[in-house]
């Protein structure tokens, strides 16, 4: 079977500056892969290129085959049918990823309605509402009815990120792209969200593209990892291989930095 996502020779550039150069990787159905690198290394650019949502002034070349369809150069109407069915994205900043003037339940209802309409030909309001509450329950939000009737500013940051995950799940995508989903959260909430994501990905069998600059976080949720620097892939392999026995100096620096940080944490006893 061919891969769910296959990226070949992806190059992203804008105004003569190359943001991602000649990147190739693939993700099979149900596989979990991590993209790791510092800010500006082209991680998020790669993710946006996969969804075909890069702004018009950024040029993309190469090939991105998502769910057997070419994304690069495809027109918007074509891509709209692909988005939500093949992929969904969870963003870094949970506050700005939700419409501040729309109730949470309503925001989740929209992708649900579209999916039900696609699958069953019509979407009954009652079925949509039930599904919305189910989703809120699935991402372990307390009192789903209350949350559904609340505005984003009325719930906490961790809860907002759970809502964002519920929105992504509402599409039942084959590939979930998580773009630094825990970076804006505090450490305890981070751990909870990671556990939640991990459980949901295993349970639903969807593939995961996890983007982060945080080694320990990536190591927790993915099987395979690719290290990016300045838009160039340095190395790729199983998590244990790459982090246990880095073949590139840069990866070694990242691993060392994470280890030093862990030791420092250990010394302070937290």
């Amino acid at each position, binding site marked *: 079977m061919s891969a769910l996502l296959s990226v070949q020779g992806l190059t992203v550039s804008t105004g003569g500056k190359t943001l991602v150069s000649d990147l190739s990787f693939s993700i099979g159905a149900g596989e979990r892969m991590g993209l790791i690198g510092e800010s500006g290394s082209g991680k998020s650019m790669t993710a946006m290129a996969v*969804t075909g949502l890069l702004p*018009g002034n950024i040029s993309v070349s190469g090939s991105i085959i998502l769910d057997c369809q070419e994304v690069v150069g495809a027109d*918007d109407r074509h891509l709209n049918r692909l988005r939500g069915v093949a992929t969904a994205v969870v963003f870094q900043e949970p506050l*700005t990823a939700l419409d*501040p003037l729309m109730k949470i339940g309503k925001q989740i209802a929209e992708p649900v309605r579209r999916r039900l309409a696609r699958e069953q030909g019509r979407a009954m309001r*009652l079925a949509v509402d039930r599904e919305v*509450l189910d989703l809120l329950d699935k991402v372990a939000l307390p009192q789903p009815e209350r949350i*559904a009737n609340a505005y984003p500013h009325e719930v906490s940051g961790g809860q907002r990120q759970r809502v964002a995950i519920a929105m992504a799940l509402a599409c039942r995508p084959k590939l979930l792209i998580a773009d630094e989903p825990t970076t804006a959260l505090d450490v305890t909430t981070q751990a909870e969200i990671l556990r939640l994501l991990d459980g949901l990905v295993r349970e639903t069998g969807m593939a995961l593209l996890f983007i982060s600059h945080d080694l320990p976080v990536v190591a927790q949720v993915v099987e395979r990892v690719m290290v990016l620097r300045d838009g160039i892939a340095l190395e790729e392999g199983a998590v244990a291989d790459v982090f246990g026995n880095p073949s590139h100096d840069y990866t070694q620096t990242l691993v060392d930095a994470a280890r030093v940080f862990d030791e420092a944490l250990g010394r302070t006893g937290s």
Partner: protein
Amino acid sequence: MTALDLSADRPARKHSLALSIGLALVGLNVAVAILTLFWTPYDPLNASGGRLEAPSLLHWVGTDRLGRDYLTQIMIGARTALIVGTGAVAIGASIGVTLGILAAFATRLLDDVMAATLDILIAFPTLLLAMLVVAASDSASLWSAILALGLAISAIVARLTRILAKRVLRQDYIIASRTSGTSWPGVVVRHVLPNIWPTLSVNFALQFGLAVIAEASLSYLGLGAPPPNASWGRLLQEAQGTVYTAPVGAIAPGIALVALVIGMNLLADGLRDVGDPTRGRSR
């Protein structure tokens, strides 16, 4: 299973004093305007008393130099003012919001051209534009005045919409919505319009007040509603000659005009607070 009411209205918020006063002033105006459709104290076109009578129990605001009841004419003037304000804002809003949204989506070059055109239009004096439109049409009529003011408002609304929409379109939730498969028209209806509405509605209310003043100015200059339709501007102009002998004729339409415009501005202020659910939380 609990049915979930996702479309329920927001809980009632504490209304500000500005909103209450604004609603009262505008509401009074609307009520009077509707009343004149069925009943007026006297016939607005024919004399019902002596010339330039002082206010009395029979004629609360007195009569004009032809012996017509002033109160009746001011009441009908309220109707004219509302028609002009509503019509101009409706025209301005529909053209302006459409253009503004289009500009927000346009390519860089087209967007720059539109922005520059709008700036030139806005720089052009509204009254002059209105006078040109009225002069170009066959006869001075209420509708040419409304059209002219609507066009002037549309430039202002378009520029505001463009800026607001651009800001909203940069937000993460737009990308989030797009990644879940929402089309651009869907994004505009579901996210862009609701998010720019609080600011737009305030602007509409302000433009309403300005349109009412502009129409009064046009009528004062003889370019607004032709004589059978009473307009506050024309009442002011007619009372000008007799302002020392019968000052009430100039004061009364002035007060009505100011009351409606202030009411609209207060309403705009109050609307801004009501339109935004994130307002009122501690920051």
